[in-house]
């Protein structure tokens, strides 16, 4: 793919005194356990993937699996121990300090897991900060910041200090700050985990709306599978620094590549992931009813309609062409049959 905005090529990040040497000796076969015995912690282990323009890649994994570290490598907040990273075709690791700063000022935005707001600046000043660093006039930057405050719904708190805000409010400031420079590439490290469910849903919707409009290239870390499903174009699942599987949500749920991914996705409600096309059969006219559904519908949204039918349902593709059929029993099977320990 030539239009990959982010491209990683066997990236390693290993913490420890003589990480480089150990990595060379291991010859690419890094095992977290043996490394740990030698006093090294494996953060990222042989990550290779691409993110296309306008795509949203969601990274998931247990705590300590190296998600944040991966993001840090790609934004070069830490230098990867080994491997190549390309941003829009440019070799990230070969950039000098000045070019890196330029890149960050104009192309990248990041939302931090622990907010990382500047404690001595007000909401407004925090949001205007990257703009002022770029060299924008104070007045203009503040104007822009006021717009951003509106966008994240913090009107009336412009002059509060971070310590006077709740966690969720602080995170919204963080989001606004990272968006102020209108970056092309946007890194978000668990941006919504501090928000209450209502606001979170609101922010997710807002986020999707924004993304539709702005078409940024996004890497998004979350612990919440529902959130991942709602937002992701593709999902990467990490364990001990290794990317176990990177695929579309449906494929991950239907064909888990490893035992770990399978366990990880077990509890996921399939009807929320799978589309009609994932469960339909070849078109045949046996026992066909009147109802027609699009193949792109998520099962959850149409399940009720289909289950009230006695007969099979027609699945349509583009331009209303018939591409297959679905039997209600198949829907029941998908929704309830796939889970093992269902009480």
């Amino acid at each position, binding site marked *: 793919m030539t239009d990959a905005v982010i491209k990683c090529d066997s990236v390693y990040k290993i913490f420890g005194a003589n990480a480089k040497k150990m990595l060379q000796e291991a010859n690419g076969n890094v095992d977290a356990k043996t490394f740990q015995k030698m006093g090294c912690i494996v953060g990222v282990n042989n990550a290779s993937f691409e993110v296309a323009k306008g795509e949203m890649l969601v990274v998931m994994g247990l705590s300590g699996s190296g998600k944040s570290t991966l993001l840090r490598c790609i934004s070069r*907040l830490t230098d990867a121990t080994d491997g190549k990273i390309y941003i829009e075709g440019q070799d990230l690791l070969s950039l000098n300090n000045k070019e890196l700063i330029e890149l960050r000022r104009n192309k990248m935005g990041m939302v931090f897991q622990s*907010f990382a707001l500047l404690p*001595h600046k007000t909401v407004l000043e925090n949001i205007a900060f990257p703009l002022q660093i770029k060299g924008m006039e104070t007045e203009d930057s503040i104007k822009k910041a006021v717009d951003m405050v509106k966008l994240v719904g913090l009107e009336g708190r412009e002059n509060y200090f971070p310590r006077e805000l709740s966690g969720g409010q602080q995170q919204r400031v963080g989001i606004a700050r990272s968006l102020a420079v209108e970056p092309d590439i946007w890194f978000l490290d668990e941006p919504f985990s501090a928000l209450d469910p209502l606001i979170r849903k609101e922010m997710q919707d807002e986020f999707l709306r924004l993304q539709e409009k702005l078409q940024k290239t996004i890497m998004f870390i979350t612990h919440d599978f529902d959130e991942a499903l709602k937002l992701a174009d593709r999902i990467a699942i990490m364990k001990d620094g290794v990317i176990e599987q990177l695929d579309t949500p449906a494929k991950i749920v239907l064909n888990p590549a490893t035992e770990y991914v399978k366990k990880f996705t077990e509890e996921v409600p399939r009807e929320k992931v799978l589309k009609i096309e994932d469960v339909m059969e070849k078109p045949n006219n046996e026992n066909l009813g009147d109802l027609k559904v699009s193949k792109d519908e998520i099962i959850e949204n149409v399940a009720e309609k289909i289950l009230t039918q006695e007969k099979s349902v027609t699945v349509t593709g583009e331009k209303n062409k018939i591409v297959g059929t679905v039997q209600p029993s198949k829907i029941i099977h998908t929704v309830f049959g796939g889970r093992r320990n269902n009480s």
Partner: protein
Amino acid sequence: MELLKKYPKLFQWLFLLIVFFALCFSIDVPETYKFIRGQAEFIKDPNQSTYTLFGTEVRYYAFDVLWRLPPLLGWLPIWVNDTLFFLLNEWMPMEFWNEATREYKTRPLVLQITRNITAFMTFLIEFIREILLGGVETVVAFTSWDFVSTYRWAKLPGLPWTIVAAGAAILSYKLSGKGLAIFAGLVMIYISVFGQWKPSMQTLSFILVAAPLSFAFGLSLGIWAYKSKRVEKALYPILLTMQTMPQYAVLVPAMVLFGIGDHAAVIITMVVAIPPMILLTLLGLRAVPPEVIEAGKMSGCNNFQLMTKVLVPTARRDILIGVNQVIMVCFSMAVIAAFIGAKGLGWNLLLALNQLNIGLALEAGLCISLIAILLDKMSLAWANKQEDYFGNLTFFQRYKNSLFFAGALLIGIILSYAGSFYFKEGYNYFFEVPHNKGISTADFWNKGVDWIFDTFFVYIKAFNTWLIVEVLQPMRALYLRMPAVATLVLVVGAGYIIGGIRSALVVGGLALFIALSPWWDRALVTTYMATFGVIISCTIGLTVGTLCQQNKYTTKFMLAVCDIFQTFPSFVYLIPVMMLFGVTDTSVLIAVIVYATIPATRYTIEGLRSVPAGLHDAASMSGVTKFQRLINIEFPIAFPHMMLGVNQTIVFALFMVIIGAFIGTEDLGQYILKALSDKAGGGKGLILGICVAFIALIFDNLIRTWVQKRKKHLGID
């Protein structure tokens, strides 16, 4: 056996104490031993032993080695002195261009450097002084005396006090608001009306040079140490020693290098004020969360922006404490530096104390304290200042402070001009109230002191005698009765039990240095005075702190009181005690107690306050009474922090004991004071200071190691 396993530490301590006392009782006091006589000095006395090292002859009274170690380091002060002298007068002679005489002159490098620094400092001080008080030296510095005598207008008249007062009030208003503005105005008016204007402005000019310079140097060195591990490693031991070194002790070597006068005072002040600034800067920068730094980087900061816009402001809290310390040190040095000829309030204070004119001393002390508080509050307000982006300000609103100041300038000039007609003969009170023409309450205070003396003399005397005879003398005798070896064993043993081999070595080394210096006896006296002060201070501080902490308002009140007391220059504490107890050891000890109680109280409150609220609730739910909760939960958790307070208390107490030499004690401080008037006292002063610093460092090391272990044990930090 069971017990031994359960409390291994307890038995280690017991064992140590048994050994210590066994040593104490088995080593007798030598017949010839008499306190005060163990010094290495150049008095010929047939009883003295001598040794020669590096060509210096050191004389001392020899005792049994177990009783007092011979002063094997006695050559050190002499050697330091010789080295200083050599550096200053002989090392690296070079040719320097002299502007005044228009010819090359040969001078040793170090001398030239110190002279240049001296000239620079003098210029800065004169410059500010002349803005405030008038004068011509600054103009002369840029032109010549001829220029000034030709053009009469070049003689700066200085600002009338009305303008300075208005300026201070307006600046305070701009920084903080009405409250501070009123305070600033009142302080200035007080100073003027009481006839302290000139010395106050002299002190102020000294501080306006010393404080910003110390701040700038401290901050940059702190940043440098933050960026480079190597610099930090090199600086750290020096900083620790400097922080515990009594301010007196720095005076002596600095006097040798820079002579006497305001400039030397500024340099010494900087030497004393920079270390805490560096340490606090470093501490603050280290505590900046890594994600904030990353956020700064992701915003595209270059290194400079990262430092100035992210790191330093985020570390602001600690840096501000540093500023506060700098100001504190500057004011307390403003008094102490009067010993080497700094002009201003400190000089007056010292003079008044010397003449036992308590009233005058009180006025000068009050002035100095008020200015200190004012500057402290102003610097705080400046750092906390916020901008308002939404104000759609009119021209007037935007520039109202400048306009007001311009108005004040105009009115002030007109007033003082008018004053020159109105107060025909004598003094123009609108321009400056001269020193002896202001209102003075000195008589009142002096009468008060006399009255107190007349009325309560019997009681005070009785108390004094009782304290000295029943408590202090025996305590002192006990301290002096310790054989050197026993003391060393005790120190090393404590180090080992608390912190293992490493601590034992460090602490033992420090103690050994003192033991091998010629001043072991003096050090014991210093320690005894400090110990007495620390015990009482800690008791008071703990009680008061705990009581105040029970209530939100009293907590706040007490912390504010601590803040204000801390801003008082240390010398000021001697005034009221001399007022009550005259020139005795009791006075010094009471000053020590008052001064050292501040950190004890503060840290107790802070420690108790840092106990997580969740624990309170959990304890309350399980039905313990308030008292039980205090004893069983809050104290154990707050204890490590409180121990840090004890640490500070020790340092404060030592400082005050040394300053107390002014009243006349017979400890290390007295020798430092003597070294001041000794031509070859540089080395002595320095080594004496190091001895005091080492006493503090021994306790510092033990307490800190213990606190760290304890904190780890409790899982905080």
